[in-house]
């Protein structure tokens, strides 16, 4: 057997392979990972865009559908990036498959980026399809398309990191679902997806500024419809800051092998 493979070593291949595997993983169960969130978002669009939406008016100069669609898009991005990294890494830990990676030359940065990029792809794909479907209900003005895409990318990156962290700390499926049901879901719903926080009476309106997801949702909507509850600078600054903190946290955990290597 030829046992001198040094010249055949491709340093980027472990990363590319892990990224490919993570993408294939979610595509293989696309009914669960892509179709279900798209159907859920379509139902929201139908309810708030075509039925209730016609009777609601929360922002001067915009239909309710135009207001709610950016929130629904970013909600799809957030939920699906989180679900991808958290479920994939947790399943690997839970079923023991993680050792298959731990014995390979995949480095911690390659590990994080492969999981992150695959999750971002899934989240952004869901977001893009939700937007395409939304065109049946309303036309968005797309004031700053570049900033909107940038905010979606930041949101997906941030929640991919949060998913990795949750997967490492979770002890079982129950604790993992707690992160999405009792943390992300309330923060998304109270972060201004369905209403502008400016219409809330105090102290609820002021409290909303403490919700980190408000900045992601508002920044994205602001970039699309040109109106927001806060400035671009604050929305992007807070979102980037949180993304950096979570990335550093995830990198530290994975670099150390926390709960991955005993």
């Amino acid at each position, binding site marked *: *057997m030829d046992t001198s493979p040094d010249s*055949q070593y491709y340093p980027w*291949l472990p990363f590319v392979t*892990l990224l490919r*595997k993570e993408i294939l993983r979610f595509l293989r169960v696309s009914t669960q990972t892509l179709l279900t969130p798209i159907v859920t978002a379509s139902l929201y669009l139908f309810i708030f865009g075509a039925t209730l939406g016609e009777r609601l008016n929360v922002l001067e100069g915009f239909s309710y559908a135009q207001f709610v669609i950016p929130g629904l898009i970013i909600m799809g991005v957030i939920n699906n990036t989180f679900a991808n990294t958290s479920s994939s890494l947790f399943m690997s830990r839970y079923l*023991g498959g993680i*050792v*298959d990676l731990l014995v*390979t030359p995949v480095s911690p940065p390659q590990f994080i980026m492969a999981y992150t990029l695959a999750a971002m792809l899934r989240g952004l794909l869901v977001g893009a399809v939700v937007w395409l479907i939304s065109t049946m209900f309303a036309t968005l003005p797309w004031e700053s398309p570049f900033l909107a895409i940038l905010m979606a990318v930041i949101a997906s990156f941030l929640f991919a990191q949060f998913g990795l962290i949750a997967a490492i700390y979770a002890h079982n499926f129950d604790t993992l679902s707690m992160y999405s049901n009792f943390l992300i879901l309330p923060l998304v719903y109270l972060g201004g997806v369905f209403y502008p926080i400016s219409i809330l009476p105090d102290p609820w309106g002021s409290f909303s500024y403490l919700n980190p997801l408000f900045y992601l949702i508002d920044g994205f909507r602001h970039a699309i419809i040109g109106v927001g509850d806060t400035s671009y600078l604050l929305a992007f600054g807070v979102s980037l800051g949180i993304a950096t903190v979570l990335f550093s946290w995830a990198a530290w955990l994975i670099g150390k092998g926390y709960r991955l290597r*005993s």
Partner: protein
Amino acid sequence: MRLYIRIMSALIIENLYKSFDGIPAVKGINFTIDNGEIFGLLGPNGAGKSTTINMIAGVVRLGSGSITAFGYDNQREYRHTRRMLGVVHQEVVIDNFFTVDQALRLHAGYYGVKDDPAWRQLLVERLGLKPHLDKVMLKLSGGLKRRFMIAKALIHRPKLLILDEPTAGVDVELRHGLWEFVREINRQGTTILLTTHYLEEAEEMCDRIAIMNHGELIALEETQQLIRRLSNRQLRLWLEYPLTEIPIGLGSYSPELKENGNILLLRLPAGEGAGRVLSQLTESGLKIQDIETDQSGLEEVFIHLTGIKGA
């Protein structure tokens, strides 16, 4: 000289220590595996074998000490060492999302090696996986999963193959097939480190054997030398005429008369040859018709060292 040893050795373990929640699992062990040998690491359950193997593979962090594989430190230069190691874990590890074929291709990539169709083909043929390439892991039988684990560990052509209980729960036919294949890849240059519960297999396969107990290395020798040194041999003498009582001076050999005094059984202490006792018997005028020696194997050595039956 030291540098030469480091390069020529497949694996050097120095002062390796590991504890879990303050309880020591591996207590400062040292050993070296030469390039090209088949090395057995044996011990009862909880002896620290799997912890040692998992530290070598990178699944368990080192408490202290060092591991050097083919001259590279497995902490600082883990990318080099892991490329040279193939690991068959004790637990069956599979990914139910992929077919056998897809999983093998992915595994080569994790190691930074481009898919080599000829090598992949050879592995699946030799391990009897060819008819199952398009099956997802969930559909494989226990034996096929084991074979897949071996193919997966070899897909990147490792220089050192680590087999942690590869035949646990595997039927006899498959066990023989797997060991035959392991011998074949060893002949082609791959160093083998194995643990097994089947001591007769270790005796047959391994050039050298290390025995662990309570986290310590209690023996490390060439297999046959270890058996010769530590197992008691039994000498069965067929006599020309029957004896009614045991000759004087044989007390240290635990003598026993059988078959109405026609057979004299003597147990040789570990490490002692038959020459001394045979001269003694000849001098005493005993006529011997035939001699048979019965050497017990690794199992007895294992029990002798650990006080536990079976590895």
